[in-house]
């Protein structure tokens, strides 16, 4: 069911994409902001990696960095991004263009990810035109891609994005990504702006496609429940760093990092059986420009001791198998899941 894998050092042939030590710095009016700080991730073919974290944790930046979509001005990045062994960082623009048929992206806002002035069929065919697919073939591939997301070409032809609802737009966006037949899709908050009654569609659709095409996915979301649903493995980001990474079960049932636990505890649960008891704790979220020394989470962490301020924890295997960057990882089941199982 789930293909949980222990992260292993070194390159393995099943690894489609391998990010090593990726750092991205933005400079804004003289100040340097580390959006991503030494992140190493990998995705195997057909695998879905979920990236969760709060706003500003670097999720989106990672997604864009590995497709080389970051703005060039005021941005520096380092580290290696290898796609099936090819280092994307070293590719020329033209070389990168060749790679783009194999990696695609789906954006958060279905409306703004379409040029409002273009027709749907042109939008879906865009990648094919750029990749130089002959016209005759283009049509069939567009048709196929649209069919995959539940549209007939005849229904959408000639229409503009604003004639579609958010959910439909997001399906078309999936079709656009699929049309070039990629191996990997980066989904950046693909359901965040959809109504609950619509987002289920899109999630199911992504799942179907993943299975049918053996697509690898990087699924970026702030919604832990959605990430849990779609991901084989989950990486939890905090302040530009991976603080915990492992399979869905590992992360959700026995979170080792205090931050992961905090996130999970905060998720509103559709549980009306009792009235929640409000907690009164609150901690300031530290500045991105001057992150705290040592562990970035220590200012919010109930377990923090002096060592956390002195020594930055590195990602190491936790007892339950996941990787965690904490000096004092938890090793008990999540309190809420205990409650549920009780």
């Amino acid at each position, binding site marked *: *069911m*789930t293909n949980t894998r222990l992260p292993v050092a070194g390159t393995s042939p099943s690894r489609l994409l391998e990010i090593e030590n990726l750092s991205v710095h933005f400079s804004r009016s003289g100040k340097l902001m580390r959006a991503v700080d030494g992140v190493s991730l990998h995705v195997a073919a057909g695998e879905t990696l979920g990236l969760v974290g*709060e*706003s500003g944790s670097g999720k989106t930046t990672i997604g864009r960095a590995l497709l080389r979509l970051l703005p060039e001005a005021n941005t520096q990045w380092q580290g290696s991004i290898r796609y099936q062994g090819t280092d994307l960082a070293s590719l020329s623009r033209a070389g990168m263009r060749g790679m783009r048929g194999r990696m695609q992206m789906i954006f958060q806002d279905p409306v703004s990810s379409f040029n409002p002035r273009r027709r749907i069929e042109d939008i879906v065919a865009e990648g094919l035109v750029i990749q130089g697919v002959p016209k005759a073939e283009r049509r069939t591939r567009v048709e196929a891609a649209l069919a995959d997301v539940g549209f007939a070409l005849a229904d959408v032809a000639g229409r503009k994005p604003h004639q579609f*609802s958010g*959910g*439909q737009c997001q399906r078309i966006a999936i079709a656009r990504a699929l049309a070039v037949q990629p191996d990997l899709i980066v989904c950046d908050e693909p359901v965040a702006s959809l*109504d*609950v*009654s*619509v*987002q*289920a*569609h899109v*999630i*199911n659709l992504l*799942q179907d496609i993943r299975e049918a095409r053996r697509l690898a996915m990087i699924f970026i979301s*702030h*919604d*832990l*429940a*959605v990430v*849990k*649903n*779609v*991901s*084989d493995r989950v990486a939890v980001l905090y302040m530009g760093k991976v603080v915990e990474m492992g399979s*869905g*079960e590992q992360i*959700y049932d026995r979170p080792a990092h205090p931050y992961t636990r*905090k*996130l*999970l*505890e*905060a*998720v*509103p*649960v*559709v*549980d*009306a*059986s*009792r*009235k*929640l008891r*409000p*907690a*009164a*704790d*609150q901690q*300031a*979220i530290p500045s991105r420009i001057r992150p705290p020394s040592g562990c970035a989470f220590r200012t919010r962490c109930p377990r923090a001791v002096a060592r956390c301020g002195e020594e930055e924890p590195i990602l190491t295997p936790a007892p339950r198998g996941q990787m965690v960057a904490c000096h004092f990882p938890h090793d008990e089941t999540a309190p809420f*899941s205990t409650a*549920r*199982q*009780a």
Partner: protein
Amino acid sequence: MSEDLPILACRDMSCQISARPKALDVLQNIDFTVARHTALGIVGESGAGKSMLVKSIMGIAPASVRVNGQIMLDGQDLFAMKPRDRARFIGRKVGIVFQNPMTSLNPYVPVGRQIAEACRQHFDVPRDEARQRAIELLRTVGIADPEDCYDYYPHHFSGGMKQRIMIAASLICHPDLLIADEATTALDVTVQKEVLDLLQTIQEQRQMSMILVSHNLGVVAGRTDEILVLYGGHVVEYGPTSEVFRNPRHRYTEALLSAMPHMDQPTHTRLRTIAGQPPSLANKPAGCPFAPRCGAAEGPCHTTMPDMRTGTDSRHRFACHFPLEQTVGPAVVSGATDRGARAQ
């Protein structure tokens, strides 16, 4: 002003936007009450009319919107008042926190003054006293160094802090009712929880009533006494929160609950989907607004809007021609097959 008089009662309220070619019904036949010291959750997807409902109650609906029916606030009929008096009355009785903390605070005015100004206007509180009250409230909502923060501008605060300041501002006139309109939607989960906790604490401590408006069922689930489900401008289900969640009778409520991914589902669980799209203002179905998307819809669903019915619990009401069966016992939330058993 008796204690058993509900703080807010909407009777047969409706809202129309005047537009061409025909006026658009945003809300129809809204009927609910908020009892003292209780919390009401209002849930609905975008376009369901949540925002308009709040604005109509607050008297800040756009000029092109016509509000009909009756709104009783603390026993007073709002529409019987002169507009100016009404605004002042609402301002004193109701505190409101809006969705977007980034835009709800005037970036040009120090936060302290934005908190204090309402009581200065409504109760002629002297400047120093208003300041003291505001500082006290800042402390209450958990702002460190409230004396200093009084003179800070909104941009000095993070989103969560701003929302706390908005809560402080809403409390300055000691309102009887606090409305949080998607107050935590724009916040990160951890901050969302903190703010929700704060709202709940304050409501309980100050013995206020509260309306918690959200698109997220999870937000209202553990924090309200009653819940009102809006769909397409209609109240489709209304009742005690635990009852509605445990035993949804309207098919929309049930579908919504089962469409949500849950953290206790295994990875790659298929979600139940709801066909179609929520109705738009311009082309609302003639009968039940949910009929086009409802698997159980039959003839009358497409032609007539169902009346409110009452379940076994007399407080649980729903508008469905073919409601779901009442399930007995607390074990299963709904008939959703693929959601698995959910322990209570």
